[in-house]
């Protein structure tokens, strides 16, 4: 089947991210994208969905119907799923697949293409899917009408370009200070609807300014972090790599550095503080799932580090997510005037 959509045959070892740069003047909304799965067997539908994705900030990844469960298990960060109700030649029924996905990952918007279904079946499916609020039915003839749904479900939150760029810069700086001699690269920022937890190590810290309240998480796997310690790339010696607490401490200090840089850059004056509204954060360890109590898409960075001498053996991937779940008022966003007027560089001693 000819299509320009990249295909996911098997769960990739590393969940990729979307493209899209965050450049431009401060008031501009950042150009963010989101990765979507496309489960289709029809060439015309694939072409139309590809065009739709290209035009609407979506990075489509085609997946064979039989590989869907494995791909979902592989913990790829996703924004939505496109699925055809009629999958030609596939063992799996598209409608059944849609119901399974809606049950497994109800947080993901699911765009279900109804072309070619007998009317009676389509009506029965519509009734059955009424209980699935994440499912949006469409036909190719009206695919452009999905834009409003995509905007509402994925891009309803404005992230100022300068904010996104600054978050990336402060993260890159913190990573560079904690991992000596390692190369650092941040993939372009993206948004997700998923609530997945990557790896075994996870930090969580409140992020509060007058214009936002929420949390930042850093997530990674212990094995790659341990290898960085063994290779002498951190503050710990190789012998200290066996103690999991040291791995915790590395991610903890990294979190602290980004949090501190965020506070210094954006200020905290006027933030509602710990007495403001709170909602429970729910973690399900079995499903490696976290909910911040909001349906809003999260802003994500995928950070990759490696040693130039042995890039594969020393690779670390850190997933950074910002869930401004408690309040978000980008119209009030501003950088701290203290920073703009200039103050001491990090690392320098300011004597009183």
């Amino acid at each position, binding site marked *: 089947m000819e299509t320009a959509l990249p295909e996911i045959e098997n769960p990739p070892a590393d969940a990729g991210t979307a493209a899209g740069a965050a450049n431009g003047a401060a008031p501009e909304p950042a150009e963010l994208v989101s990765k979507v799965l496309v489960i289709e067997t029809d060439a015309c539908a694939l072409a139309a969905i590809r065009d739709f994705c290209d035009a609407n900030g979506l990075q489509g990844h085609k997946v064979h119907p039989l590989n869907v469960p494995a791909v979902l298990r592989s913990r790829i960060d996703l924004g939505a799923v496109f699925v055809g109700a009629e999958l030609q030649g596939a063992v799996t029924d598209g409608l059944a697949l849609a119901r399974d996905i809606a049950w497994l990952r109800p947080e993901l918007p699911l765009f279900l293409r109804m072309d070619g279904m007998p009317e009676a079946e389509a009506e029965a499916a519509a009734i059955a899917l009424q209980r699935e609020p994440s499912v949006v039915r469409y036909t190719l003839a009206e695919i452009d009408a999905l834009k409003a749904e995509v905007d509402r479900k994925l891009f309803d939150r404005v992230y100022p370009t300068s904010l996104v760029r600054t978050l990336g810069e402060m993260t890159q700086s913190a990573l560079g200070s904690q991992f000596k001699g390692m190369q650092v690269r941040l993939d372009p920022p993206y948004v997700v609807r998923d609530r997945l937890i990557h790896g075994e190590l996870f930090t969580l810290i409140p992020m509060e300014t007058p214009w936002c309240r929420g949390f930042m998480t850093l997530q990674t796997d212990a094995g790659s972090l341990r290898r960085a310690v063994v290779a002498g790339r951190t503050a*710990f010696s190789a012998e200290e790599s066996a103690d999991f607490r040291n791995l915790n401490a590395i991610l903890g200090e990294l979190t*602290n*550095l980004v949090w*501190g840089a965020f506070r210094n850059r954006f200020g905290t004056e006027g933030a509602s503080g710990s007495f403001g509204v709170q909602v429970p954060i729910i973690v399900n360890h079995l499903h490696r799932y976290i909910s911040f109590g909001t349906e809003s898409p999260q802003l994500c960075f995928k950070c990759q580090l490696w040693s130039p001498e042995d890039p594969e053996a020393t690779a670390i991937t850190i997933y950074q997510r910002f869930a401004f779940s408690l309040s978000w008022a980008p119209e009030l966003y501003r950088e701290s005037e203290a920073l703009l007027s200039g103050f001491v560089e*990090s*690392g*320098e*001693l300011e*004597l009183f």
Partner: protein
Amino acid sequence: MANVLVVDDSSTVRNEVGNFLGSNGFQVALAVDGHDGLAKLRQDSGIKLVVCDVNMPNMDGLTMVERVRSELGNHKVNIVMLTTESSPAMKERGKAAGVKGWIVKPFNGAAVLGSFQKLAA
């Protein structure tokens, strides 16, 4: 007997700063929070320089500094804050408590070694 005390709840920072100072001829003691720092200062009168974080559990760094000056009556020890905080209000509180200097993390040993050597002399 130590001449420098590093107070930070992060073992990453204690290791990084402690190892750097140790390899540059300092005798280093470590403390995990303000309570621990206060106890170490009480036990060891040879400490000339304290490198201290601000945000720590149990007792924060600025409270520790205030208690070093008031409770211990130790006005000689030089205290430098090593922290992610850089707000003018926080620095003012530090200055009022008798903090000698302020470093915004991350730690850059080469940039501060000369000053530390003078402050620990």
